[in-house]
Structures are given as structure tokens and as C-alpha cells.
């Protein structure tokens, strides 16, 4: 069954962790939660594919975890606070994950944040329907900002 569409699905580069994704991603999130224990981290690192079998993931979810495709994990029901535990198990900082998800380098991402972050102009809406709340009219999308945020699948 195709995913039911919601108003927030119009936000670019964003996978809202809603009830449907939560249902779908229960296994991914429980797997990530298991990594809070050192013995589980060791077992996972020793044989990743074997360890994942305990969590009833779909083949797509398993592939996303093994490939560390963080955006795909979110799309298939993973939640960022959970998947961040996988990143930590790999020894990565959160900013590393953010850089991976945004298709940037960690240095480039850190620089963007120091410069005031990703602008909302041009990043509000996929369809152009999302308008700023108070300004009255939607800002023109800035090509540069948009290319940064565009999802590979969105």
C-alpha cells in the first residue's frame, strides 16, 4: 500500500517520524536501542548481518543499515535519535552523520552551521505551496540552497 500523504510530506529533505513510519521501523529502532549495551555493540561489530537477523528487518531495511544509508533508514521508519546510536557505535560524532545525510563534508557542514545554518528560504516546500507564516508570500527558492537540501528520493 502506498504511503498516505500528509501536509508535512511537502517539506523537502525531511522524513517525519510519524505513526506509520514508527510501525514500519520498529525493528530498526529496537536494533539501534540494543546498541546501548557494550556486549551488543561487540556482537553487532563481529557479524553485522547475523546480528540484524534478531530484529525482523525487511531486506531494504537490512541493506540500509549495512550500507549506513542514514536517509534511507529514516525513510524506512528509523528515527534520528535511534539511528544516532548506530553512528556512535561506529565511533562517529553526530556532526559526521549530519554531513552524511546532507551530502556534505563534516567540515562543510560545520562551516554552514557557523555561518548561521541552512536558510529556510528555498527549503520550505517541494511544491511551492508552503508559505512563510507571516511574510504573506513565499520567498523565491534560492537555487544554491535548494540543491543542498534536495533528497535523492524526494
Amino acid at each position, binding site marked *: 500500500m502506498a504511503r498516505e500523504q500528509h501536509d508535512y510530506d511537502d517539506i523537502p529533505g525531511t522524513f517525519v517520524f510519524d505513526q506509520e513510519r514508527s510501525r514500519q521501523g520498529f525493528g530498526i529502532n529496537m536494533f539501534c536501542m540494543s546498541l546501548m549495551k557494550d556486549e551488543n555493540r561487540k556482537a553487532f561489530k563481529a557479524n553485522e548481518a547475523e546480528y540484524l537477523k534478531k530484529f525482523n528487518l525487511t531486506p531494504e531495511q537490512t541493506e540500509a543499515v549495512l550500507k549506513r544509508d542514514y536517509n534511507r533508514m529514516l525513510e524506512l521508519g528509523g528515527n534520528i535519535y535511534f539511528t544516532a*546510536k548506530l553512528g556512535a557505535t561506529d565511533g562517529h560524532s553526530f556532526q559526521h552523520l549530519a554531513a552524511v545525510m546532507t551530502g556534505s563534508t563534516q567540515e562543510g557542514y560545520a562551516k554552514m552551521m557557523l555561518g548561521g545554518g541552512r536558510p529556510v528560504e528555498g527549503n*520550505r516546500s517541494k511544491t511551492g505551496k508552503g508559505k512563510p507564516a507571516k511574510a504573506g508570500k513565499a520567498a523565491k527558492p534560492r537555487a544554491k540552497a535548494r540543491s543542498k537540501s534536495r533528497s535523492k528520493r524526494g
Partner: protein
Amino acid sequence: MARIIAGVTSSHVPAIGAAIDNHRTEEPYWKRVFSGFEKSKEWMAKTKPDVCIVVYNDHASAFSVEMVPTFALGCAAEFPPADEGWGPRPVPVVKGHPQLAAHIAQSVILDEFDLTVVNKMEVDHGLTVPMNLLFGSPNEWPCRVIPLAVNVVLYPPPTGHRCFMLGKAIRKAVQSYPEDLRVVVMGTGGMSHQISGPRAGLINSKFDKAFLDNLSKDPKKLMRMPHVEYMREAGAEGIEMVMWLVMRGALDDKVDEVYRFYTVPASNTAVGHIILENRVRGAKAAGKRRPTAGKLKRAAARAKTTIIRGQR
């Protein structure tokens, strides 16, 4: 009688906690963040609340996806810091106020807020980082704490209106508690940030500043803001700001903004912080009688400034 004297909001960025724990607060990047809370610590030391009700969210620490309570009130005697994967933060155990918490639960559930009562819970950076920002790093926290965990991780979180009304119910509960306690309510999280997906790193200072303005002066404007607007304008995780409305609902309609601080960034997040005080009844108007509604109307017809002064 217990009463709510003030409300405080603060971001709860985990990296702020890491900077404290790893003694990096003097680095220029972090000094910019911490310096904004110096006055707040002074204010807190002077205000000396007996109890803080801290509205925060858990980040896959106490609650996994196995159970997701929308509102969970911490009624235990103490709440140890959670191990978030790097060992528990080296902060004091949070001491609860089980009697007041039980009284609040009893009162707000009968006021139709179906709280989850939690008698055993660990608290993560969502609660402990704002404690550090407001109280520094003492050996013991100087006041009792009642944690109120709000689900903002699994969509949909409670609406802003619901949060505001819960704040009102909490205020009513506190005011009917017989012991003389001074209570501060803290709303944590925010401000604009997105940490997930290709749009991660989003910051919207214009939205944040308008939110702070409205929180202070016109919170009813914020009550009806739909979730999609938070997420679109302030980032997917910026929706945490609904928790600030619990704090605001617990205060008087008119409050004094005594301090505000805003900076970008701390890690992936815009940091926002505000202190709002309930006006002390009769203090400023001592010796002056409050004009009646009829007098106010007549005064308003003469000059708008009169009505503003009259209300203070």
C-alpha cells in the same frame, strides 16, 4: 499555599552538556553560548525556587519505541542521569518532590489530562542540560525537580493548545497545594533546528525571534500554530518548542520578561532562552486601586496610554 513565581525556557542541546562534561566551556565557541546564561544563573540564585517543574523530552533513553507516553509526570523521589551511550553524565542525581507530583497528578487527571505517572525513570540531557545552564555544576542541585516528559519524537506530539492548557491545569494544581512552596516552571528544547535528513542544519532566526516575542506578550497566537508550521519553519525537530507552551500556560496571562538570550549555533541548533516572571500581586499597584472595567473603558476612550498604565 504553593505558587508559580516564574517560567524559564532553554534549549537542551546535548553538545552543551558534552562541553561542560569535557571542560570546554572556556573555548570561544562555547563561551559565546555559556556567557548568555551568566545572568540567568544569578537570577536563579536570587530567586531560589523550592521546586522546578521541568518540561522536557526524552531522547530514546528512558522511553524507547516500546512505550511512548504523550505526557509522563515523574513522581519518584529521585531520577538518576541516564546512560546515553557514553556513560551517565557526571551530574547530581535529580531529587524529586513526590508529594507535590502526586498532588499534581491527582489534580490534572481529574481536569481531564490523562497523564502517565512514572515512578521509576532516568533522565537524559533533555533535562540535565537546562539544569546546568540555570544552576551551573553544583555537587547537589539546589532545588527539587518534577520532570514532565512530553513526547515530541513520535509524530504527532500534543498540540500547542493542549500543552498550554496542561500548563494551566498544572498551575491550578500547584496553587491548591497547601505547603508554602515557590515553584519555577521550565520549558526546554528548541529553538529552530533539524538534525535529520537532507535538510539537516536548518535554522530560522526570524521565526525564533517572533516565537520569543509572542511567548512573552501574546502566547495565544502560538497556541493554534499547526505542527506543520513548526516543522516547515523551524525544522523537523524544532517542533520541540510546543513544550514551551506548557510553561507559558502555567504563568499569568501578563508577565514581565526579565531576560532573553539568543545565539546561533550550538552544534546543530539555535539556542533560545527567556525568563518570564509572574507579577507580584499588589506590589507595583500598592496604594493604587485597580480601576474597574467601566473606568478602564472610559480611560481607554481618553488615551490608550492610560489603560496600559492602569493595568500594571
